[in-house]
C-alpha cells in the first residue's frame, strides 16, 4: 500500500512517515503542497494524508481537484490539520475528505483512522 503524504512542514512529513512505518506502511511518497501532490499522484497511491494550510494550493483545494480526476475519485483521503472549527471540518468532508485528524495527534489515532479508511469508508463529495 503506497501512501502520499502532503504537508508543507518537513517536520510533520517526517513524523507522519515514521508513524506509518511503525504501523507497517513503509511505502510513502511526499509532497510539500497541493500542486506538487497533483503532479506526483498516480493510480498506485492507495491512501492520501494531507494537511490543509499550505502555500500554492491548500489541502482542501487539492482534494477538490483530485476528485475531479477520473483516477482520483475513490482514493481515500485523510486530512491531518490544526483546523478544528466545525465549519472547516464540514467543508473538508464536502470537498471529498474521508476522515479527519486534528493536530497534534497520537500514533493510535492515526492507526485508527487509517484502519477505518481501509475498511472502505466512502467519501462524501457534494
Amino acid at each position, binding site marked *: 500500500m503506497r501512501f502520499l503524504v502532503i504537508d508543507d512542514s518537513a517536520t510533520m512529513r517526517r513524523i507522519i512517515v515514521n508513524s506509518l512505518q511503525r504501523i507497517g506502511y513503509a511505502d510513502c511518497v511526499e509532497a510539500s503542497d497541493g500542486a506538487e501532490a497533483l503532479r506526483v499522484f498516480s493510480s498506485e497511491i492507495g491512501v492520501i494524508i494531507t494537511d490543509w494550510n499550505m502555500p500554492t494550493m491548500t489541502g482542501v483545494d487539492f482534494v477538490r481537484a483530485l476528485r475531479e480526476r477520473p483516477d482520483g475519485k475513490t482514493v481515500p483521503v485523510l486530512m491531518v490539520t*490544526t483546523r478544528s472549527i466545525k465549519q472547516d471540518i*464540514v467543508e473538508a468532508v464536502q470537498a471529498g475528505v474521508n476522515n479527519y485528524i486534528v*493536530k497534534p495527534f497520537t500514533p493510535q489515532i492515526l492507526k485508527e483512522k487509517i484502519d477505518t479508511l481501509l475498511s472502505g469508508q466512502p467519501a462524501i463529495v457534494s
Partner: protein
Amino acid sequence: MATQPPSDLLYDSEAALRLIDTALDELRDVSPDSVESRARGLAAAPPPVRLVGLGTVTRVLAHAYADVMGALGSLRDTRAALERVAADRLKTTNDRLLEVSSATEVAATDMLDGIERSLAMVDTLAASSAGHDATTIASLREELFRLMGCMQFQDITSQQLAFASSMLSDMEQRLVDIARLFDTTTFGEVAMDPTEQMQGHFDSQASTKNAEARQAVADEVVNGMTDQDNGNR
C-alpha cells in the same frame, strides 16, 4: 513648536477666515473716489475703521500663517513617529519572530535526526539481545516514538508565529499608509498586503491545547455526515 488638537486648529482657522472675510468686506466698502482723493492728498483723513480693517488683515494673516506652520510641524512629528514605529520597531519584531520560527525548525530537524538514530540503535540492540530485555527495549522504542510525536509542536507554533508575523506586517502596512497621507515622498511603493500574500499558509487558530476535545468534535462531524450520507444511499 507647540501642537494643537485638530479640532482647535479647525476652529482657529475658521475664526481667522471669518476675520479675513470681514476685513475684505470693509476694504470693498472703500469707494474709488475716496481712494483717488487720498492718493492726491487732497481729501480728509480716511475713516479710522478702514485703517483698523487693514491692520486686522495683517494680524489675521500672521495668525493663520502661525497656525498653518504649527499644523505642518505637528504633521512632521507624527510622520516621523510613524516612520520610526513602522519601519524600525515593527520590522525588527517581525524579523525576530521569523528568526525564532526558523530556529525551532532547525532544532526540530536536529531532534528528529537524533530520535531516528536512536530508533536505529534500539533496533540493533533488539537484534543482538536475542530476546533479553525485550520489555525494556520495547518501552524505549515506545518512548522514542512518543518524543517524535511531541515534535508536532514545531508545526503548530510555526503557524502561530506566522500568524503573529502577518499581523505585524499588516500593522506596518497600515502605519505606512497613514504616514503616506502626511508625506507622499518619504515612503516608496508599498508591497501587496502581506496577510493576503500569506493567505492559506497557516491556521490563525492553530493550538497545541485540547487536542482530544477537538478531535472528538471532528469525529462527531465526520461520523454524522457519513451516517447521513449512508442513509441517503
